[in-house]
């Protein structure tokens, strides 16, 4: 057997003599990929040159024997552009001190003030390990870490699931804890303190932190041969520094609703109006109930989900989402996606504060704490290659429509744009492969 090609040929000939020409064709076999990768490149862009985000994510999964699984996810994120500061539009141009406290930026008359000094790069790493524990139990534990120039997050979670009823029912319970450190540019402002001139940092503290505890109880139930349901209840308790250190409120005249003007100290640049840094409570408890269903109508698969969230800040929200994955040919699919979201405003949401009135303990003009609804429409296309890999592309349009109740508006504010609609395009390209 010096010539191994000779060996294969001899064997093939001998087999053919034994079996006749009964082989179906050359063998096609391979080992299961040890690693499977799921990667995505994301581009997010808001209209009017507001926030733009480019991010890359690599998810890697390694399956070991006995159903043990290692999951790693790495994300890199670059954010640029401007976002609403919370101050209201005015008939006059407005000047603000930038978060660093070292420069100013201006907003033309009639426009919603945007803080355009945003530039952030974020790296996040998550790792989790899942394995069976006894016959019907599965345990999973994970660690997460992320870093930005002004923010560091460290989190850990653990969950346990048990199967019942021929594995048609799975009950799970999980716990997650995270500790985040916030070190804003120029320091964390004292809540409700006034925005000061350039160079005056007397209202800024160095840094702060918050911690979040999450409890998740889940039930997964197979309803029929082609329908599966999941219901989750979750409770989340945040405490510590929950402000957005870059958000402010305009102080306005109680009759006209115009921003109170201010003159910077001689020789220094500074804000031209009175603006206070926001103040949120130092704790927040959220409850949410989430249900999702997947149903296969033959080859197409429908996904539907609903989430109700309520918290002790007075925010209630409803989220509904449907997706329909529709196969096209043997190897491709299209998936239209639709999402609707609505929330009520936080108890302490104020578009502006009135000069001379008693200062509330908590106040924020952050639009994300106001009342709005949002719609996302999207389409995903996926294609499986002959090698078993998949690439996919997703295009989505997201729009928020805010509304401020009339009793929160004063005088001239009615005539101005108060709640600029947010419009964003999301484009995502993904590739899944194994090694």
């Amino acid at each position, binding site marked *: 057997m010096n010539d191994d090609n000779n060996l294969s040929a001899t064997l093939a000939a001998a087999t053919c003599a034994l079996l006749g020409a009964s082989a179906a064709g050359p063998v096609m076999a391979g080992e299961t990929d040890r690693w499977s990768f799921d990667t995505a490149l994301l581009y997010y862009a808001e209209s009017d040159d507001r926030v733009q985000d480019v991010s890359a994510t690599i998810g890697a999964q390694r399956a070991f024997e006995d159903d043990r699984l290692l999951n790693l996810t790495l994300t890199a994120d670059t954010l640029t552009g401007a976002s609403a500061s919370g101050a209201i539009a005015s008939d006059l141009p407005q000047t603000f001190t930038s978060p660093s406290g070292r420069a100013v930026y201006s907003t033309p008359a009639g426009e919603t003030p945007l803080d355009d000094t945003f530039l952030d790069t974020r790296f996040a790493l998550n790792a989790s390990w899942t394995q069976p524990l006894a016959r019907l139990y599965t345990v999973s534990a994970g660690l997460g870490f992320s870093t930005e120039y*002004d923010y560091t*997050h460290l989190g850990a979670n653990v969950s346990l699931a048990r199967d*019942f009823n021929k594995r048609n029912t799975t009950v799970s319970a999980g716990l997650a804890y995270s500790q985040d450190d916030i070190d804003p540019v120029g320091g964390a402002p004292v809540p409700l303190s006034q925005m000061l001139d350039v160079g005056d940092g007397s209202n800024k503290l160095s840094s702060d932190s918050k911690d979040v505890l999450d409890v998740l109880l889940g039930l997964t139930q197979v309803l029929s041969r082609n329908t599966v349901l999941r219901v989750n209840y979750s409770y989340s308790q945040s405490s510590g520094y929950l402000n957005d250190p870059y958000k402010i409120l305009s102080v306005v005249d109680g009759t006209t609703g115009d921003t109170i003007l201010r003159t910077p100290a001689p020789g220094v640049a500074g804000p031209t109006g009175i603006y206070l840094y926001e103040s949120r409570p130092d704790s927040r408890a959220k409850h949410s109930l*989430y249900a999702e269903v997947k149903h*296969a109508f033959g080859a197409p698969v429908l996904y539907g989900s609903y989430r109700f969230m309520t918290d002790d800040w007075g*925010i209630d929200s409803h989220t509904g989402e449907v997706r329909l994955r529709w196969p096209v040919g043997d190897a491709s699919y299209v998936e239209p996606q639709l999402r609707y979201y609505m929330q009520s405003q936080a108890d302490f949401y104020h578009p502006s504060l009135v000069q001379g009135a008693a200062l509330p303990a908590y106040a924020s003009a952050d639009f*994300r704490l106001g009342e709005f609804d949002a719609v996302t429409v999207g389409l995903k296309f996926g294609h499986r290659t002959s090698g078993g890999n998949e690439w996919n592309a997703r295009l989505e349009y997201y729009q928020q429509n805010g509304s401020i109740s009339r009793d929160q508006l004063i005088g001239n504010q009615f005539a101005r744009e108060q709640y600029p609609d947010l419009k964003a395009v999301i484009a995502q390209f*993904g590739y899944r492969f194994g090694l």
Partner: protein
Amino acid sequence: MKALSLLAACLALQGCASVGVEPWQRDVLARPEMSLDANPIDAAIDDHIYFSKEASSGGRGFGGGGCGCN
């Protein structure tokens, strides 16, 4: 109260025992797209975007976050 909720949980599980499929009827459920976590990266990206633009987060899994964006 505790005993009552425990009882409710037991009853719910009893109820669940009457629905479901036999192991050999899992052909459709075994399709990758029928997995409830079929697209973890999409889900993570969505969670991240909505976390930074809305007041709600999580529900499907743990609350998301770990980001200075909200």
